């Protein structure tokens, strides 16, 4: 157990003595020691925090911080959604009408490499490329966390132009 966790526990117990018997504390601490996982520590901590009475200033500050965090989450989600939409348009601009039809209808499209091999690229990021003849699944994707449509276009470009490099990098199953 980390020393600061223990110190927090002791502090908590001292604050509760007026309302708790020593026996209860001993039992609680026993339970705590039995399963002092990080999740459990966090659970006790938040329970204790929630039981404390907030001052008006603390409540206002908590709500201000929460509102700022919520806004950041909304901004991030909106930015990711806009990026995904742009990536989708870029992908579609690089597909033939047949491939666009496949993608709309099935959620995948096929690519013919210069070797003549045909690959199916499914929506997704990992383990989404299948060689049609052998049924092998290939996993090779951008290091960066780009939208799935970008991943699919990157895979398409590699298979069409640098198939050997793609096969060298990919994990096969």
């Amino acid at each position, binding site marked *: 157990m980390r020393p600061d966790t223990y110190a927090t526990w002791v502090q908590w117990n001292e604050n509760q003595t007026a309302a708790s018997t020593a026996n209860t504390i001993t039992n609680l601490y026993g339970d705590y020691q039995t399963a002092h996982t990080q999740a459990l520590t966090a659970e006790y901590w938040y329970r204790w925090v929630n039981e404390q009475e907030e001052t008006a200033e603390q409540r206002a500050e908590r709500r201000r911080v929460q509102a700022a965090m919520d806004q950041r989450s909304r901004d991030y989600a909106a930015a990711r959604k806009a990026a995904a939409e742009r990536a*989708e348009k870029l992908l579609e601009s*690089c597909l033939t009408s047949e491939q666009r039809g496949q993608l709309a209808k099935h959620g995948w499209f096929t690519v013919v490499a210069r070797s003549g091999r045909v690959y199916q690229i499914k929506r997704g990021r990992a383990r989404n490329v299948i060689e049609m003849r052998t049924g092998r699944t290939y996993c090779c*994707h951008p290091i960066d966390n780009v939208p799935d*449509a*970008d991943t699919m*276009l990157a895979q398409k470009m590699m298979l069409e132009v640098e198939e050997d490099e793609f096969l060298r*990098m990919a994990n096969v199953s």
Partner: protein
Amino acid sequence: MTCEMAVMTPADGDLKIIWDSDKPVEVEHARKSFDEFKRKGYAAYRVNKSGDSGEVMRSFEADAEKVILRPQMMGG
């Protein structure tokens, strides 16, 4: 001639850099952007307007009508 570079980035999905191949200032700006992304490990493909018939682009070409830059790849 109007040329464009489409860069796959996490923040933008498709970051467009557009230049006029007849305007040296714009060409230079596009070249710097291209080199910057290449330094970051991006690979570039020169494609036709419909996005197919691609070929690997090792260095910037001012008259490339459409260029796609993808991030570095890894086996998953």
